[in-house]
C-alpha cells in the first residue's frame, strides 16, 4: 500500500438555496407529483446570484485542504472540471489556486467533459502523483448547471461541487492497483455550442446508448481487471442525473439497493450538480458510511460521451481525518427555500 496513490483529502460545497420540483412543475403547468416519482428528485440546489463555478470550487477546495491537513503550497496541480466556467477564456483554476494559497508553483487547467470533467482531472492527478512529478494534485468537479426555463432539465439542473486531493501521504482511500478505466465514444446525447446559453439534448440518446452503455461498460471492465464481483463492494457511486438512472444501472450491474443508497440521497435532495454529481456522492459515502477496509466502486458519466471508473479501498486514516470539515449532509440540511421567480432572479434570467 505504501506505493499506492489515493485520496488524502476531499471537500464539498452546496449553495444554500433550494427550489422544490413541485414549484418548477407549477410554473410549467406540469404534474409535480408525477415528475417527482419519475425522476426521484424532490428539490434542487440553486446558487445565489453571487455564486458561480469558481466560488463553489473554491469553497470545496478550501474544505479539502482543511480535511487533508496539508500545506496548500504542496499542491502541484489544480484542475477544475465544469461545463459552466464563468469565463470562456481565463481559467477558473487560477482563481481557486490563489484563493486557497497554492499559488504560484502549481500547474492549472480547466477541464471540460460534460458531467465527468472532475473525474478526468482525478485521473490526471493520479498520473502526476504516480510518476512523482507532484506531491499532491487537486481535482474539482463543480457546476452551476444551466437549463432553459421550461426544459425537462430544469427539474434537476442544480449547483454544487466537490474537490479531491490526490497523493501518496496518508491517504484515506487508495485507488486499487493505481488503476482507473475509461470508456469513451462519440455520442451526441447532450451539447452546448459556443455562444448558446443553454444546452441541447437529443432525447433518444440520453438512455441506453449513452448513460447506461458507458457507465455499465466502465464498471464491468474495472471489476474484471481487479477480479471483483458486485458483492465484493460495500458501496457503489454512479453519476446521478436523476435518481432513476443510477438505480437502474446498479440493478443491471447486479448491485443491491443498500450499496448505492447512501450516494443517492445527494440527488434526491439537491438534484444533478453535473460535474459535482458523482464526486458529491462519493463524498457522502466517505463522510459517514465508509469504514477502514471497505471497497467503493465509483463511475462517472459525461455526455458526449464517456465514463471513468475508480475502485477504492478505504484506509484507517479516514477515522483520524473525518469530521475536520463540513459534511455533505451539513450542506444539504442548511437550506432556504425560494420560489420560482426568485430562482430566475438568482440564475440571472430576470433581474427584479
Amino acid at each position: 500500500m505504501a506505493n499506492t496513490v489515493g485520496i488524502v483529502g476531499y471537500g464539498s460545497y452546496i449553495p444554500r438555496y433550494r427550489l422544490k420540483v413541485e414549484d418548477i412543475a407549477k410554473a410549467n403547468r406540469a404534474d409535480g407529483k408525477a415528475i417527482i416519482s419519475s425522476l426521484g428528485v424532490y428539490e434542487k440546489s440553486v446558487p445565489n446570484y453571487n455564486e458561480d463555478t469558481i466560488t463553489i470550487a473554491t469553497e470545496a477546495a478550501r474544505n479539502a485542504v482543511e480535511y487533508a491537513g496539508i500545506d496548500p503550497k504542496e499542491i502541484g496541480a489544480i484542475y477544475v472540471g465544469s461545463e459552466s466556467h464563468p469565463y470562456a477564456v481565463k481559467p477558473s483554476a487560477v482563481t481557486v489556486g490563489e484563493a486557497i494559497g497554492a499559488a504560484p508553483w502549481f500547474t492549472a487547467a480547466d477541464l471540460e467533459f460534460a458531467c465527468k470533467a472532475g473525474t478526468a482531472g482525478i485521473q490526471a492527478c493520479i498520473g502526476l502523483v504516480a510518476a512523482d512529478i507532484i506531491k499532491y494534485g487537486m481535482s474539482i468537479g463543480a457546476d452551476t448547471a444551466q437549463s432553459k426555463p421550461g426544459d425537462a432539465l430544469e427539474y434537476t439542473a442544480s449547483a454544487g461541487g466537490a474537490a479531491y486531493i490526490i497523493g501518496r501521504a496518508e491517504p484515506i482511500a487508495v485507488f486499487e492497483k493505481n488503476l482507473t478505466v475509461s470508456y469513451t465514444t462519440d455520442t451526441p446525447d447532450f451539447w452546448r455550442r459556443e455562444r448558446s446559453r443553454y444546452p441541447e439534448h437529443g432525447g433518444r440518446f440520453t438512455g441506453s446508448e449513452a448513460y447506461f452503455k458507458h457507465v455499465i461498460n466502465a464498471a464491468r471492465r474495472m471489476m474484471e481487471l481487479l477480479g471483483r464481483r458486485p458483492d465484493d463492494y460495500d458501496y457503489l457511486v454512479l453519476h446521478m442525473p436523476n435518481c432513476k438512472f443510477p438505480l437502474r444501472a446498479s440493478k443491471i450491474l447486479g448491485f443491491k439497493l443498500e450499496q448505492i443508497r447512501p450516494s443517492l440521497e445527494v440527488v434526491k435532495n439537491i438534484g444533478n450538480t453535473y460535474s459535482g454529481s458523482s464526486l458529491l456522492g462519493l463524498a457522502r459515502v466517505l463522510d459517514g458510511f465508509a469504514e477502514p477496509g471497505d471497497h467503493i466502486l465509483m463511475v462517472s458519466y459525461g455526455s458526449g460521451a464517456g465514463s471513468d471508473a475508480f475502485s477504492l479501498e478505504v484506509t484507517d486514516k479516514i477515522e483520524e481525518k473525518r469530521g475536520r470539515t463540513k459534511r455533505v449532509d451539513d450542506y444539504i440540511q442548511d437550506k432556504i427555500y425560494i420560489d420560482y421567480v426568485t430562482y430566475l432572479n438568482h440564475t440571472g434570467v430576470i433581474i427584479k
Partner: protein
Amino acid sequence: MDFSPSREWREINARYRLESSMCERCGRIYYPPRDLCPVCRRKSIGAMKTITLPRRGEIVTYSVIHAAPLKGFEGRTPYIVAIVDLGGVRIQTLLTDCEPDEIEIGDEVEAVFRRIREDGERGVIHYGTIFRPVRMPKTSVHAH
C-alpha cells in the same frame, strides 16, 4: 528594478484569503494590509507581518441598503453592509445568503468566497471574501 506588487495584487491576497498585516511593534492589525503602521510610522519598517484573519466571527453592527448606490449592485437590493469582528479585528464586509430580518447583532458569521462585482458583461469578474450567517440546520435530510 525591484518587483513591486501592485495595489490590485495586494488586494487579491486580502480579498481572496483575508490576509492582513500586523505591526509587531504595537500589535495593531490592518485589513486590508498596509506597508507601514500609521501609528508607529517609520519605526514599523520591517516589522509588518502578514497574518490571516479567522474565517469565523460575529456581527458588530450592520445596515441595510435599499437604494443601490454601488455600481454592479443594481437589482440586488436590499443588500447588507456589516462590521464583523474576526478574533478582535473588525472589518467592513457584505453579508450574503440571508434576508435583513433574519440577522441580529452578535450573530455568528462565516467567510465565503463570492463574486463581488463585474465590469459589465464583457469585463473582468472581481472575486472576494464576504460573510454569511452560520445557520443551525433545523431540517433533516429527506428520508424518502
